[in-house]
């Protein structure tokens, strides 16, 4: 036997492309958010609320990632912001290459905030750096309070947690304190917001925080 020692990151190719994306973002003075959650937690709904709230204050562009369809891009396009849909055709996450390709079709001049909605999946997107400044994780009350313990990686790498569908709390078995405690044990630095896209609770606070990061 002979042994070749190589010591490399398995995802080094993605990391290199993410670094290139990061350079592009910096050159344009862009702040980039990568939104992740399980399918249906409310990423697009939060995005809609955020655009509604911030689009007159900030120039925003959006990249949508989905396994199939451009439904989410259509929802975002109603706000008259530049939006590109990435369809992964079965792929369970966005990677830096897909984002790089999508960037080619957005005019970034003047844009201050780029929001990337990742594919609905709490596991796979965690390993793929896109070049973003922050990851934001959305967990909805209907998913239960144990999500942070089941999918710790996503919560550990995120800067903010939006506990969405807070309006549904009276109807379901979700211990909000437990959910928050679990999330903060995984990541004590997590900034936590309680939001509802139906009652708009917490949306202003979240947008204020986001605007401050930019």
């Amino acid at each position, binding site marked *: 036997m002979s042994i*070749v020692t*190589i010591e*490399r*990151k398995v*995802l080094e190719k993605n990391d290199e492309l993410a670094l290139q994306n990061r350079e592009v973002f910096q050159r344009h003075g862009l702040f980039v958010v990568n939104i992740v959650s399980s399918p249906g937690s409310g990423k697009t709904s939060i995005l809609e609320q955020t655009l509604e709230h911030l689009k007159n204050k900030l120039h925003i562009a959006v990249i949508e990632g989905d396994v199939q369809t451009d439904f989410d891009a259509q929802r975002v396009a109603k706000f008259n912001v530049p939006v590109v849909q990435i369809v992964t055709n079965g792929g*369970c996450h966005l990677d830096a290459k897909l984002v790089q390709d999508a960037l080619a079709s957005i005019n970034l001049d003047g844009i201050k905030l780029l929001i990337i909605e990742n594919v609905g999946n709490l596991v796979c997107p965690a390993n793929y750096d896109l070049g973003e400044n922050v990851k934001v994780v959305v967990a909805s009350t209907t998913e239960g309070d144990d999500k942070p313990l089941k999918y710790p990686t996503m919560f550990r790498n995120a800067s903010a947690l939006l506990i969405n569908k807070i309006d549904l709390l009276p109807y379901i078995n979700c211990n909000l304190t437990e959910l928050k405690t679990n999330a903060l044990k995984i990541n*004590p630095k997590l900034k936590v917001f309680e939001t509802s896209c139906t009652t708009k609770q917490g949306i202003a606070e979240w947008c204020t925080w986001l605007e401050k990061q930019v």
Partner: protein
Amino acid sequence: MHELSIAQNIVEIIHKHIPEAEWEKVASVHLKIGKVAGVVSDSLDFSFQAITAETSLRNTRLEVESIPFRVLCNACGVTTENEVGFTVCSECGSGNTKVLSGSELDITEIEIAEPAVKIS
């Protein structure tokens, strides 16, 4: 199933670092995978075997070393390990900690089988 895309990355790294004439002889690939890297070793193995089955890497095995999730507490100075991935110190509860390991997804060594009898 991002294990499939991770397996593809492993194949690419082997192809990049080992001359094509030796691919048939790659016996194993050594990986370090952190406890909280979000990668399931069995799925990775399954994916790797599936995509290499009919290729020159069909005899290659993945050897995975699992790396514990370890946290050093800046408050009490104790290093602890836990399975879940709690970043708060399990000794004193402080959030002022540093993660020492557990997120690795590294390829460390490629082992090449030499011919059994060497003609010298």
